[in-house]
């Protein structure tokens, strides 16, 4: 392990070290704390310019309630879930299938397909903006959650395939040979051998894709209009338009938007580093 572990017997150095880490962490998350604190302030304080002093009253409940009652935030939230969950599932399915094929079968063009997946994943979004919009128009999907789902699944599949391919390629060859020797079909091998083994990778990938999709703003702006389909990121931008200097409300909205990915992350974090370790970090 590097850096060298502080020996378990050195209790004081360990405590001091933790203290130092906590201090760095506080600095690191300082902007976040600032906004959390602000979200607790009452409107009167904010309007009166009392942004950092002792709050005259606590506005947490009012602020957070305002976000949900004065705006369609609840709706945006639901939309985001409607968009994000199928996207994550779609990406996981497609990329597992593609990653399995790319890592377990040698055929001409294997590398080329892989390269295109990887390369496409690095394209600037803007270059696809107009044609994707046109495509969705032609499919009559513009301003529907389906448009966002299709786009996100298509785009994230590039990255996810790279990830899954590396992960499955890192599994021992002999497991697959054993399955084949036992008469399992390629599809059975995928279901019974590959997928159970890549579960940690799927977990890590699920977190990443979830945050990518949940956090998308650009495509939300390009492909949606109606409140009934707009995700929270675009919703948050809307809020800012309405509440320009009501920093307490904006802060509350911001925190609310951030909650699901943070929760998701904490739920799955056990697998996160482990999953990444095998999948992403290999070339």
């Amino acid at each position, binding site marked *: 392990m590097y850096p060298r572990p502080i020996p378990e017997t050195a209790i004081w150095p360990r405590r001091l070290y933790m203290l130092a880490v906590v201090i760095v962490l506080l600095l690191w998350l300082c902007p976040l704390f600032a906004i959390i604190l602000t979200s607790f302030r009452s409107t009167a304080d904010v309007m009166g310019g009392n942004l950092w002093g002792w709050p005259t009253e606590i506005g947490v409940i009012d602020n957070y309630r305002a976000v949900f009652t004065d705006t369609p935030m609840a709706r945006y939230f639901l939309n985001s879930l409607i968009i994000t969950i199928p996207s994550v599932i779609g990406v996981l399915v497609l990329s597992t299938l593609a990653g399995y094929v790319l890592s377990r079968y040698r055929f001409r063009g294997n590398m080329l397909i892989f390269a295109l997946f990887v390369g496409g994943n690095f394209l600037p979004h803007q270059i696809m903006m107009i044609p994707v919009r046109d495509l969705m128009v032609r499919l009559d999907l513009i301003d529907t959650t389906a448009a966002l789902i299709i786009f996100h699944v298509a785009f994230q599949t590039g990255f996810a395939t790279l990830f899954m391919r590396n992960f499955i390629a890192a599994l021992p060859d002999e497991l697959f040979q054993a399955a084949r020797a036992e008469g399992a079909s390629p599809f059975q091998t995928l279901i019974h051998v590959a997928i159970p083994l890549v579960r940690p990778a799927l977990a890590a990938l699920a977190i990443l894709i979830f945050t990518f999709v949940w956090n998308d703003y650009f495509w939300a702006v390009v492909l949606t209009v109606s409140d009934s389909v707009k995700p929270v990121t675009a919703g948050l931008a809307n809020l800012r338009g309405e509440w320009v200097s009501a920093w307490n409300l904006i802060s509350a909205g911001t925190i609310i938007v951030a909650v699901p990915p943070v929760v998701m992350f904490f739920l799955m974090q056990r697998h996160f580093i482990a999953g990444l370790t095998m999948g992403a970090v*290999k070339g």
Partner: protein
Amino acid sequence: MQTLWRRQRWWLTPTLLIAPAILLFFIVILLSAVRSVWISFHEWDGFGEMIWVGLGNYVELYNDPQFYVSLKNNLIWLVMFMAAPPIGLAIALLVNQKIAGMRFLKSLFFIPLVLASVTVGVVFTWVYTPEFGLLALIFRAFGAVAPAVLSDEHFVTFAIVIAALWPQITFCMVLYLAGLNNLSEELIGAGRVDGARGWNMLRHIVLPQLTQVTFIAIAVTVVGALRSFDMISVMTSGGPFGSSSVLAYQMYEQSIFSYRFGYGAAIASVLFVIMAVFIAWYLTHIIRSEERGG
């Protein structure tokens, strides 16, 4: 039928399995990219007729001062973003200790990674707000007055990049943590026996083992820098007067605000070419390491 399937399944199965991903990805992503290049040779307002102008858009771009501002800003992004891998590594090293509670702190360090860039943009706009913001507060503590960084054409890009670095550093940190997990215990032991310590250990033993991670961190960072859009859109809309614009944002602005989709596509294509250089570098690296069997 049954036997036909059994005979042919060795190639049919993989084909069927990979087909959906390929179809979707190629149609939605790759075809769109190609079509965009095609659009860049036209003058088009997004709904009317497309008028062929050949390289007209590119010629205009060549003479557009805003283009160079954006290009310069992209460069600033690129250069400043390169701070993300080393800082990410530093934090990863800091938290890579097995002490009770460290796991939880580590997870807290990850938070910026999962925040939406809109969120980060809002957070930092708040930090930078003149008079009320955190930055102003800090300056005031030292008896100084904070510059209004978001309205100063000289500071604005740096200010946005610093905000954008926040999640980017986190991403690099996560990658490095994964990499540090994978270090060979024996190599480190060998290094220690050879008397390498501290910086020497990092430089000669640890970093060489992290080259793959560093490579990915740099790749992700470069892409992030070139793609930067959300933060600019949220924090300044390219302002003041275009001074914080980058190619991606300028493209968006031209297409959406000025209704010049052909011109926007041309900007996107230029961005694409810049990116292509990088993608090519990345792919050759990957393919080469594949061939080495890694």
